[in-house]
């Protein structure tokens, strides 16, 4: 998909270039590559032309934004290995931190833009089959013997890490909860999971196309998208009593923009995400906008509930080491007798 878009854009760009050369000298066309995670395809397809127009109005120059999508960790690895991304817009800060640790992105990247460099937020909700036949209302219902839960593998999927942390945060907040009881809840939860896909879209396929499972732990925007696509008769969204504030962050890729000389445009692109106009597009695609006015405008769409944040877990470095690294909690809950 991304390749097709790239090629098509390249052809359009090349044709445009020829026409311009045939006419009179025109300012060089800037091209940016936005490397993003899976479910943002539709969002950036709408944001990009809006930014192009705004940029032309402001500077008189044309600009093209290409987009590439895949699992968040996989995309970060591609950038690390040389994919020429001007900006990264990933599922979680840990993936950009990994780039920062290796000198691809400046270490203070999260301080360069407002709100920890996350122009929108989301949360984790339950997508259930029409009429909610298994009566799933909240986290403990996921442990009912006849309920099968679909979530991707948190080792490879950014969304799945938010799922994992949301469940864990709930378990940690139960009366009399200990670390051991929370881990036990996670162990029992993953016993209800029949298949671990590597990415969020794969898991959506398992739930939607293969008809697997009764509950799909999903990004709020993915859940709304599925509901809009297949109709409210096919799926229902259940908001649990407690979830997590998922913050998908954005950053300029310093190593690339410095070489290409595209820092100004790349920065303007990310700043554009915070404007009223882009925030409205963000809301339209069921992400939660940061702008309080836009958020208020769509308030009925975003039920509020208490949410944990990644800071409650001591930040991504701690969470990563404690839960998802080799020998972490995710490994432990699958290893018998330990």
């Amino acid at each position: 998909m991304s390749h097709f878009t790239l090629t098509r854009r390249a052809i359009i760009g090349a044709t445009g270039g020829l026409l311009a050369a045939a006419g009179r000298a025109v300012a060089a066309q800037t091209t940016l590559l936005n490397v993003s995670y899976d479910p943002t395809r539709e969002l950036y397809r709408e944001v990009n032309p809006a930014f192009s127009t705004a940029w032309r109005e402001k500077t008189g120059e044309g600009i093209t934004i290409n987009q590439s999508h895949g699992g968040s960790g996989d995309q970060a690895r591609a950038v690390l290995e040389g994919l020429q991304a001007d900006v990264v817009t990933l599922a979680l800060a840990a993936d950009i931190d990994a780039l920062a640790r290796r000198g691809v992105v400046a270490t203070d990247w999260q301080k360069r833009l407002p709100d920890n460099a996350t122009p929108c937020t989301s949360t984790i909700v339950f997508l259930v089959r029409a009429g909610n036949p298994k009566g799933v209302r909240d986290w403990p219902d996921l442990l009912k013997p006849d309920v099968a839960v679909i979530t991707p593998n948190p080792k490879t999927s950014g969304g799945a890490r938010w799922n994992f942390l949301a469940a864990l945060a709930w378990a940690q907040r139960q009366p009399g909860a200990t670390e051991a009881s929370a881990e036990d809840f996670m162990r029992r939860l993953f016993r209800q999971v029949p298949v671990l896909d590597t990415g969020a879209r794969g898991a959506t396929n398992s739930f939607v196309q293969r008809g697997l499972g009764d509950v799909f732990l999903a990004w709020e925007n993915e859940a709304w998208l599925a509901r809009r696509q297949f109709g409210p008769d096919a799926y229902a969204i259940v908001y649990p009593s407690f979830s997590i504030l998922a913050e998908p962050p954005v950053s300029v890729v310093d190593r690339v923009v410095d070489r290409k000389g595209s820092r100004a445009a790349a920065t303007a692109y990310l700043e554009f995400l915070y404007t009223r106009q882009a925030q409205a597009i963000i809301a339209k695609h069921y992400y939660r906008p940061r702008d309080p006015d836009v958020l208020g405008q769509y308030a009925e769409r975003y039920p509020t509930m208490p949410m944990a944040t990644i800071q409650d877990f001591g930040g991504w470095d701690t969470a990563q080491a404690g839960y998802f690294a080799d020998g972490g909690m995710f490994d432990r809950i699958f290893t018998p007798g330990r």
Partner: protein
Amino acid sequence: MSFRASRSALPGFALTMGITLTWLSLIVVLPLALLVLRPWTLGVAGVWHSIAEPRVLAALRLSFGAAVLAAAVNVPFGLLVAWVMLRYRFPGRNLADSLIDMPLALPTAVAGIALTALFAPKGWIGILLMPLDIKVAYTPLGILVALVFVGLPFVVRTLEPVLMDLPLEAEEAAATLGASRAQTLRRVVLPALVPALLAGFAAALARGIGEYGSVIFIAGNMPMISEIAPLLIVIRLEQLDYAGAAALALVMLLASFGILLLLNWLQWRMARRPS
């Protein structure tokens, strides 16, 4: 140099040998050498630690176990298919013959998705197996099905030339000497085929150990249960754990190499044994 001693009647030995060695080094030895060198940034203890994890051991057991089982299933059925294809003439034989190569030609992901759709609880076969309480998709059994699928052509195509060369006279001689059909098969045909059966087994096994594309769709990918070793390598890469991924790859490389060496040796011994 002693190369001269075995001077061949054909010219061009030095040139072809040089190209062969260069080509083999570039295509096979160099990548494998990198693989062998990569893990040691972890240190010997680190490499050991990253392999001795229960989850890794379970994945290795599954990958090698399922590959052995699938190859073992493919040997008798592959023999049957090769036999029927060569010994009988029937309508549609050419079509059936080219179907055998399909698992080789099909992108493995396509095979995996098709098998999953078939064996998923809602699929054509899955729905029939449901009342029997047999689950194939998203279980280790599904891995076996995928590996049998991709391994079949290796057995059939290895056996065919040997079967073709099998002199019909030997079977006829056995018959005239009073051997029953079963005796002819057991005493005359099968012994001649054993080296080829082993070679087919080895080829199917090698394919099964490394198979990724078709398996991940049908496996369910649950740690300790249905997670294959190649998937663990990919997972480690996605976690940017290059050394850990290479360590696991090295173990697979050594184990596969050992198994293939053993099978080749067995084959060589049997081929040499006087009949």
